[in-house]
């Protein structure tokens, strides 16, 4: 069933991509133009998605609820980490991010804290100091 839905979604995406590409104007003296290739691909995708709708595979196994909670939490940590990376600086945000991830992957709070601190600091030293890759230190605290 899910394959049919995916097929339908891909079909709509490819048809609209085909439609959007139609508006790209041919450059002067260019034999191909910017529209033809995306349209070839989108057309191919549309036909294949019809195939997927007609011959779907059996549905994949749904994940258990705790697994899904952890997956969503992991995503939230990753997004939060990126949002905080520049304001909080690399060492602090990485310490927090690593500790949260370690918790999600089953470490105890103490172990997670130590891991976070160790990873946050050592990666900063390796990349910023040793490899000379400038990483934000702590802009929110020191401007």
């Amino acid at each position: 069933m899910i394959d049919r839905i995916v097929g339908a979604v891909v079909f709509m995406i490819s048809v609209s991509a085909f439609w959007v590409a139609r508006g790209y104007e041919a450059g002067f003296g260019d034999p191909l133009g910017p529209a033809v290739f995306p349209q070839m691909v989108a057309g191919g995708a549309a036909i294949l998605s019809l195939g997927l709708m007609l011959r779907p595979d059996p549905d994949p196994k749904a994940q258990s609820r705790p697994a899904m909670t952890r997956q969503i939490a992991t995503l939230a940590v990753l997004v939060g980490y990126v949002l905080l990376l520049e304001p909080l600086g690399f060492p602090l945000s990485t310490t927090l991010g690593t500790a949260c991830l370690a918790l999600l992957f089953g470490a105890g709070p103490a172990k997670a804290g130590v891991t976070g601190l160790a990873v946050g600091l050592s990666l900063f030293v390796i990349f910023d100091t040793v490899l000379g890759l400038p990483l934000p230190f702590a802009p929110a605290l020191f401007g």
Partner: protein
Amino acid sequence: MDILTSLIGGFAVAVTPLNLALAVFGCFAGTLIGALPGLGPVNGVAILIPVAFAMKLEPGSALIMLSCIYYGCMYGGRISSIMLNIPGDEPAIMTTLDGYPMARRGQAAKALGISAVASFTGATFATLGLTFFAPLLAKAAIHFGPADYFALYVMAFATIGGVTGVNPFKTLLAAMLGLLLASVGLDPGTGTARFTFGSFHLYDGFDPIVAIVGLFAVSEIIMYFESHATSGAGPAKLGRALPRLREVFEGFPAALRGSVIGFICGVLPGAGASLGAFVSYSTEKQISDKKGTFGTGDPRGIAAPEAGNNAASGGALIPMLTLGVPGSGTTAVMLALLVSLNIQPGPLLFERQPDIVWGLIAALYLANVVLLLLNVPMVGLFTRLLSLPQWLLMPVVVMVSFIGIYSISHSTFDLFVMIGFGLLGYALRKLEISLVPVVLGLLLGADMENNLRRALSISGGDFGILLQSPIALVIYGFTALMLMFSFGIAMRRRPDPLEG
């Protein structure tokens, strides 16, 4: 003789102290990455590409380090197959069949020794093949015109699913998705902004490295909670650390056969290391399994697939280097690396940048020796590292990939794009849609379009030129055959409702 001179020149490039140190580091890191379940060669190489940039390495040195990681992964995959019954990476699946039973019988050291020698045999055979065969193919490929290249790309996409029996609609759709993603950004031919939705961040299109790390590494993290929820039995005992020399060579004839088969599988489009290991194992089983010992811990059942998978991964470098068309996930990532280093693989690479190609080939010979030395006496260290807790390993992997991507452009936008690709990768994996064609499409889309454009400017806009060259026609013919074959297999597998 020409080849030998070039190879000696290559060794001169590879044997600088820095490059040697990078090769040893790459071999060690690669074995480790390959051995740890869940971190395959694609992830390992993809995550370490930005790190290699951050180290500001010369293109040749970066290439040497990452190729050693690539070869190292293929050696390492067998360790967890044998010790834990969990393949460290996909090509090592066949090694679990006889490797784990041997380890359970207390012959773990013997199994690891045999498989190390088999890996060495396979990889050396493939590197020899690369040395002599790749320049020939490059010479032949010089005669390819734009229309032939276009045909070659069509073949690469149509055959990437190979004969694996996965729903071919899905594989082809994945390729189209990759090609569509490749057309995001400014069109190189005309400067038109395509599918950017007014965002300036998208004018450069998607960086393949960002996409690859997202698709493979980030999705692996999300997938982890489903696939590794239940852990198997503990590792088997290693027993005596060093196997006897005589025991190690027990599987040598099987390894030789596996090498030849694996190498051929590697060179063919749409195959790669997993198929190499599979075909080597099943062929060896037909040749040698007279007493039904295969699957219960027969040394030849380890030697053949290990030689096969290593030979195939070496062989897979041939189409990638000479034609610029990778045949497997890891070689696609290697291509992404070359492109980001401003090295354009293809027949001209051998003429224009011989020091890079031959330096790489020489480094592969060195990597093999280093890997054999690392993998026989030091295997105990790697098996101990297998018990590293996941809560330590996974966060470190995440953080290293985030730093790597951040270091490319110092923009958090790239990190969000990477997380987005991670979600896409997760969804595709759940739907059993292969990620490799997506990456291939993203990588090769621009080149495919350029070759189409060049062909059309030769013919003055007539699409007929695509079918006029005999080379292109042969390629299309082969493509059609492969497609018929894979659709045929898929249709026949259909009635089995138990297939997941």
